[in-house]
């Protein structure tokens, strides 16, 4: 699939259409969105209480499985539909300090301040620009021929499996810029400064799941420990799969710094669409992905409440069709299959280009 190029006039018109769509939805925000996010917060809490309760007080395998699922569901919903979206400022207009982007702290080892920098700023501004968007391969995976191949890359299916299992740790240490530190490009003391919020957050998360709740159920310590670990594992695998489907499917494009020089907002919109891909599914599926199943709409309008993407999608699709832009959307297994295929394919020294791109 080739990148679509638009003339400057087309680009301006294209931008105006997307801006108009955004204004229309922004003007309609209200009660419905407030009720939605509050009901999800309630669901998160009920699931967490039920899950932890079943793990603490149950003795049978069925309550264990149900407990793990409920706790994993709480963590997934909290991270995806509440945390990620609230941290984008999607609900700042409500004026509720408990749902404010600058004050919210989510249930994950990644510090929310770190996240706002690496994700909201770096990833969403420089989406899929090699060398600027750290999310592109997380400095670990070669997902396109434009990235450097080394012998280490051969083992990337293993690196990927490890990243998927410990995904929350992967995103948590992203802002430490360990790559720069290893190469000796970081001034002394900077790493400690960068690591402080991460260490604090990691300590409190580990304490909660592996000390406080197991101790509260002292008669059931192994069961609670195992249940919490499994819930965290399920959350990591799920969020990783969904997030990798967002930018690494077969047709998701990458960009170079030179390509985006002097980019207008229309050009930025175009890059967001061409670098992202959607997942199709039912209502419950969209909710569990935090509506990242609508990655394209999310990247166009990161601060519009996510449930709105569902109604915006057909209109974005229509705009894309009129400008001849490929709208990358398919079912989960199909998209994830192409992601896994890319991980396998680029582990080999294929499509090596002469152009050097600094990772």
């Amino acid at each position: 699939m080739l990148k679509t190029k638009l003339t400057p006039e087309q680009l301006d018109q294209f931008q105006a259409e997307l801006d108009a769509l955004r204004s229309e939805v922004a003007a309609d925000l209200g009660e419905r969105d407030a009720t939605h996010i509050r009901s999800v917060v309630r669901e998160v809490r009920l699931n967490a209480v039920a899950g932890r309760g079943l793990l603490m007080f149950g003795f049978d395998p069925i309550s264990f499985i149900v407990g793990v699922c409920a706790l994993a569901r709480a963590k997934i919903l909290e991270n995806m539909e509440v945390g990620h979206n609230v941290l984008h400022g999607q609900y700042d207009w409500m004026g509720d300090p408990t749902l404010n982007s600058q004050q919210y702290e989510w249930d994950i080892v990644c510090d929310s301040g770190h996240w706002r920098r690496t994700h909201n700023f770096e990833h969403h501004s420089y989406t899929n620009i090699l060398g600027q968007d750290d999310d592109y391969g997380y400095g670990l995976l070669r997902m396109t021929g434009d990235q450097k191949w080394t012998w280490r890359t051969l083992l990337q299916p293993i690196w990927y499996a490890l990243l998927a299992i410990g995904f929350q740790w992967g995103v948590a240490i992203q802002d430490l810029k360990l790559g720069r530190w290893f190469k000796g490009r970081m001034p002394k003391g900077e790493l400690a400064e960068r690591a402080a919020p991460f260490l604090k957050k990691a300590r409190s998360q580990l304490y909660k799941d592996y000390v406080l709740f197991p101790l509260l159920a002292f008669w059931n310590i192994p069961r609670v420990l195992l249940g919490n670990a499994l819930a965290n594992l399920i959350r990591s695998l799920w969020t990783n799969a969904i997030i990798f489907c967002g930018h690494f499917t077969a047709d998701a494009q990458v960009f170079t710094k030179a390509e985006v020089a002097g980019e207008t907002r229309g050009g930025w919109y175009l890059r967001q669409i061409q670098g992202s891909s959607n997942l199709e599914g039912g209502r419950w599926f969209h909710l569990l992905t935090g509506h990242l199943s609508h990655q394209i709409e999310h990247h166009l309008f990161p601060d519009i409440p996510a449930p709105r993407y569902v109604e915006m999608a057909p209109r974005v699709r229509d705009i894309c069709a009129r400008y001849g832009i490929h709208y990358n959307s398919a079912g989960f297994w199909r998209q994830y299959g192409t992601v896994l295929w890319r991980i396998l394919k680029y582990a080999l020294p294929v499509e090596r280009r002469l152009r050097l791109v600094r990772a």
Partner: protein
Amino acid sequence: MTTSPNQRLWLGLSRVLYSPWLHPLNDADAWERLRVWMNPMWSRRDYPARVLDIIDETPDTRSFVLKPTARWPGHRAGQHVVVEVEINGRRVHRSFSLSSAPTPDRRLRITVKRQPGARVSGWLHEHVRIGDVLRLSAPTGRFAPAEGAAPLLLLSAGSGITPLMAIVEDLHRRGDPRAIVFIHCCRTPADFIFADRLRVLAAEWPNFELRVHYSASAGRFDVRQLSDLLHCQTLVCGPRALTQNVEALFLAAGVKDQVRSESYSGRVLPHGDATQDSFGVHCSVTEQVFTARGDTSLLEAAEAAGLKPAHGCRIGICKTCQCTKRSGTALNLRTGEISSEPNELIQLCISVARSPLELAL
């Protein structure tokens, strides 16, 4: 300050209860929502108050009689509260004077004039029913008569009567011996808020003299009518034009200290499409001031003045530079939205000033 053993026990207990080592069991927001779900009066955030009665004072003014919980810290006559309401998913805050004196039964009254186009007063009139729960801040303000023996002059216009009504009730309840002249200005007799109550007081309380000025028939109130009352301790509440004129009059007479005023002004309206104008921006946290031209983003203007606000993408996506605009009008260049309500969030990198601003920066 010394603490009693009881207080120390309570302090120690709350330190344990709110300790981060118990998180998330002591998640304040989760418990708050559970309490509010069970009974809105059990809220521990701000001060909930139940609406006991709604009284139509004039065709466009309504009083709400409120009963707060036992946590209510009590108020002094002349103070105001901030009322928080949620309108279409958005929390909005407005200040209203308490129009009642503190009483042993701890009832409060706020009196709300419905302003055309004003969201909160209109919403209170339309949506609040007896039995509902309103959310109040702690009372604040120092608008009160000075101690002493000099006679008092109370002057109000329109809904500016509300804190003065509380003060009059309070003076009456405490049997204050001073002579009091109360002058109230309103458009017509039908617009006279608390007319009956004040007339009864004037009839039964010899110290108290009531004068009413109807601007529809007698024209705009001229502050020069007060020149024989300049020896009084004066309290004035009304639109800014009135309070400024009264202050100027007392200043000219060399008795500036004898007047205390409280005024309300409408929203600051945008100065057209003033891209060439410059506006002063006051940062209320760092206490710094800079000037922003109408065609330069607030982020750039702040940086040009040597400030270093947090920022990221500079194109309105990441919200790193978002801050609370305390007052004034700003234009969002990306969406074309005008923000003129107090305490709205704006993104500095894509906003320009359309009036002098105060930012929580």
